[in-house]
């Protein structure tokens, strides 16, 4: 088992190395001009060349890359082209926002998906099943940005129940310990903060969650139906269990095993989907950070953000893989 963990831990930096190479070189070899660098109105070609030289963009690519690598290994992710601020501090500020949002999105998605999936399986071929499958299909197919805009226009503009954007009410005072507003609020007993944070997260999380729910619902339905055909289900009935007992005690445990595996993958999907949701809701997370950086071609910001997202993805999958033997005793790692 330790051998397995070590092997996986070694893989992560290798993956990140590959990612960094791809991003670094494609930015510099592609049709990008690092426009963020240019001060407003700088049209003088000499001025432009000077700025580019200052930032090291005229050095040979391999030199640039190894310089970059040396710094990254030391923890220095570079400075933003837009405002020369250290990229790392911006990320530290924004990352918890996205993680909070992704977690809430996962929870909503799984709760919705599993419950509709179970209902679908139990009442197979009834209207419940058809409705659940229809909603699931909508969830997967509806574009996130459209759904987001619709939600805003309904709940924020028309009904005024929820805020239209941002992460928290600007009037509220909140001491940040972890960077996760909900957690920080709870630590200090600051329930107004917690409420406000949740109000701001709800809609984007729902957008993310609906997407996930679609997958999860179909998968739960399929695996549950398959599980219900297994012999040990018949044994459970033969022992005198009720249908509820059989589903709760036997079927679900087995049917949800694949869910554990794909949660790792889904977390990755969410990190990507978060970019859309955050942009629509002006939610200050990594996704929006990345989108904004791409818009102004802020190389260091883009590189760092993608690297961090990749790292989170690898770690999330590793955790999921390590958890798997806990839920399925037949599996041994390595």
């Amino acid at each position, binding site marked *: 088992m330790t*051998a397995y963990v070590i092997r996986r831990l070694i893989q992560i930096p290798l993956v990140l190395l590959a990612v960094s190479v791809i991003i670094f070189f494609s930015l510099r070899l592609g049709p990008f001009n690092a426009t963020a660098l240019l001060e407003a109105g700088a049209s003088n070609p000499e001025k432009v060349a000077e700025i580019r030289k200052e930032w090291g963009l005229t050095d040979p690519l391999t030199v640039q890359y190894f310089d970059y690598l040396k710094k990254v290994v030391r923890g220095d992710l570079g400075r933003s082209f837009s405002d020369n601020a250290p990229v790392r501090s911006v990320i530290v500020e924004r990352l918890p926002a996205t993680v909070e949002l992704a977690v809430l999105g996962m929870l909503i998605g799984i709760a919705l998906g599993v419950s509709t999936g179970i209902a679908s399986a139990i009442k197979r071929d009834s209207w419940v099943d058809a409705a659940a499958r229809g909603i699931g299909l909508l969830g997967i197919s509806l574009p996130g940005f459209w759904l987001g805009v619709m939600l805003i226009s309904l709940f924020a503009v028309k009904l005024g129940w929820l805020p239209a954007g941002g992460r928290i009410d600007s009037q509220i005072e909140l001491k940040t310990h972890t960077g996760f507003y909900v957690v920080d609020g709870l630590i200090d007993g600051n329930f107004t903060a917690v409420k406000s944070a949740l109000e701001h997260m709800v809609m984007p999380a729902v957008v993310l969650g609906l997407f996930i729910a679609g997958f999860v619902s179909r998968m739960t339905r399929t695996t549950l139906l398959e599980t219900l055909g297994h012999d*040990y289900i018949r044994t459970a*009935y*033969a*022992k005198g269990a009720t249908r509820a007992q059989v589903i709760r005690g036997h079927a679900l*445990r087995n049917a949800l095993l694949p869910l554990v595996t794909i949660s790792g993958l889904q977390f990755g999907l969410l990190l990507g989907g978060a970019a859309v949701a955050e942009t629509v809701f002006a939610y200050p997370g990594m996704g929006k950070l990345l989108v904004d950086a791409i818009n102004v071609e802020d190389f260091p910001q883009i590189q760092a953000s993608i690297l961090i997202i990749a790292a989170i993805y690898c770690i999330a999958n590793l955790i999921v893989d390590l958890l798997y033997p806990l839920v399925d005793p*037949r599996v041994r790692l390595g």
Partner: protein
Amino acid sequence: MRLVPSGALLEVSDLTTEFVTGDGVVRAVDGVSFTIDKGRTLGIVGESGSGKSVTCLTIMGLNERRRSRTTGQALFKGENLLTMPQDRLRELRGNEIAMIFQDPMTSLNPVRTIGHQLREAVLLHNDVSRAAAEAKALEHLKEVGIPNAARRMHDYPHQFSGGMRQRVMIAMALVNSPDLLIADEPTTALDVTTQAQILELMKRLQQTYGSAIIMITHDLGVVAEVADEVLVMYAARVAERAPADVLFARPEHPYTWGLMRSLPRTGSEDERLVQIPGQPPSLLHPPAACRFHPRCPHAFDRCRVETPQLLPSPADASHVRACFLAERAEVTETVGTAVTLRRKEQLRVVADEVVATADPHRDALLIVDGLSMHFPVNKGFLRRQVGAVQAVDELSFTVRNGETLGIVGESGCGKSTLARCIIRLLEPTAGHIVFEGQEITHLSRRDLRPVRREMKIVFQDPQGALNPRKRVRDIVAEPLEVQGVGTDRERKQRVREMLEVVGLNPEHYNRFPHEFSGGQRQRIGIARALAVKPKLVICDEPVSALDVSVQAQVLNLLKDLQSEFGLTYIFIAHDLNVVRHISDRVMVMYLGKLAELAESRDLYDAPKHPYTGALLSAIPIADPELGRNREPIVLEGDVPSPINPPSGCRFHPRCPRFHEGVCDVATPQPESFGTDHLATCFYPLEEWPMSADQMARRRESRSHA
């Protein structure tokens, strides 16, 4: 017809179950009636599609309610199981009526400990604390013979062997002391020695708890050993019902008779087995009137238009059968006489004539010398080899031209691995294989090509062995193409010949495998193997996956083809009766090693190795009188893992003759016992039959010698 409830425990009358399927309505159980009293055992015998399992699932109410329709009555202690409210039925299930199923691996929840599953059985019906349930579960686990029961309560099903899992199922079923236990093919998925253990356990528990048992099986031997009364089912109906003694002595339905005569048994080696032509019918469109008439050699006009009713035999009122032939008194005599003759043969202890079928001086077609096949086990960070699965270890034997060598052994003995080594699907890790004088042990694939023309294999699973996307004619032609035999036209001709030889019709040539039955698919596999006219054919469990009545057809076919084409067979099986029937010599393997090798008759009449003795005594005999009075040698424990085989003689931990200091230290070598009889044992059996006690006692006296 409403029955007035009598004292019987379970009274089933006119039970009919229909399933609504996409293709139509299937009547899986059609007018079945029987009763069973407290403490008695009813055996239900039948092949696939006979309705034996569905009958019991219906009684338990375990059919999918949406798609099934049931009529009739099933009175359990006077209450009708088919009409009672679900709550009441649930109270009875697992409590007063319990059921165990065929495959213990899939019948237990893989992600819950067995302790949890046992406790659940208790807690569903008893309002007790968890600790009390745990205690009860533990008690029963010990009672079924699980060693280290307390620790094993926390283990998961996959950590147990097949026999152990079935014991757990039995414990789970008996934990609430049910009045009726239904066992659906409980030993079919188990090795023959494990089967003996489980049957013995069930008999003992029946005496302790006084439960009635319904034993569903296709194995007439098992039925003869355990059942008081037998129900023979065919195509959803009852064909015959009688007390076990009566049924085996005087079967009166042609189907029962056919079943009994199609079983390979002592004395059958020189005959063709009686085969029942065709296969069990589809229940979507069953034959009209008597369901058996299309396959019945005695069918006459009445059978085709009128449905026979279950009527008592004039010889014995408790014996009922549904057959017009049986109602004609004079035929009963003929059927009976044939069966009586068979019993006399079984009672013969030693054969009078020794027919020399294998001439030791005939030339050797295949020589296997010191063959070992070890699969490495890699663990750790750097994938280092930490051990090896010793699937086959230093095995030596010869196969002579024209003979059939049978190889028997239980799971894990290495017989399938051996087959794959011989045919060079695997490259052995040590030793030599010499075929027709040529060493093929390490030949490259290219060099093997001409060899592969002379050596073919027929596999166990007829469904898996045929490419479902190819037509039959292409499947059979493939080896010809690969070997570059003949022109296109010549190949087509050869394919047609082969298909005819195995008994398939011209119209079958363009069909796909899924359009055939199991027996037919196996014939296609045989045709494919013989297409290039090989010298050696390895049959790896060719009939295990087939129904009993179809087995006989394929066995007869194999024998016929052998004499027609002068083939040499290596016949691998776990069914000792089948192996005996078809083999000239038999080799017994245990955990990768050779235990015994002898002429068929010698092996079965006078085995030398204690393991062979245990195997032979574990075979259930299809004769109640003989079956009940014998004491099978029941081995302790399970077959150990080939990764960590026991030291010295691999059989020593389970051997009734184990001598400490000898058997666990030194590895016995094959010793010769008369012509052509090898056994690998320091203390071979002096005589046969012997019981386990006798084996042990003799051991004592020898050790003092």
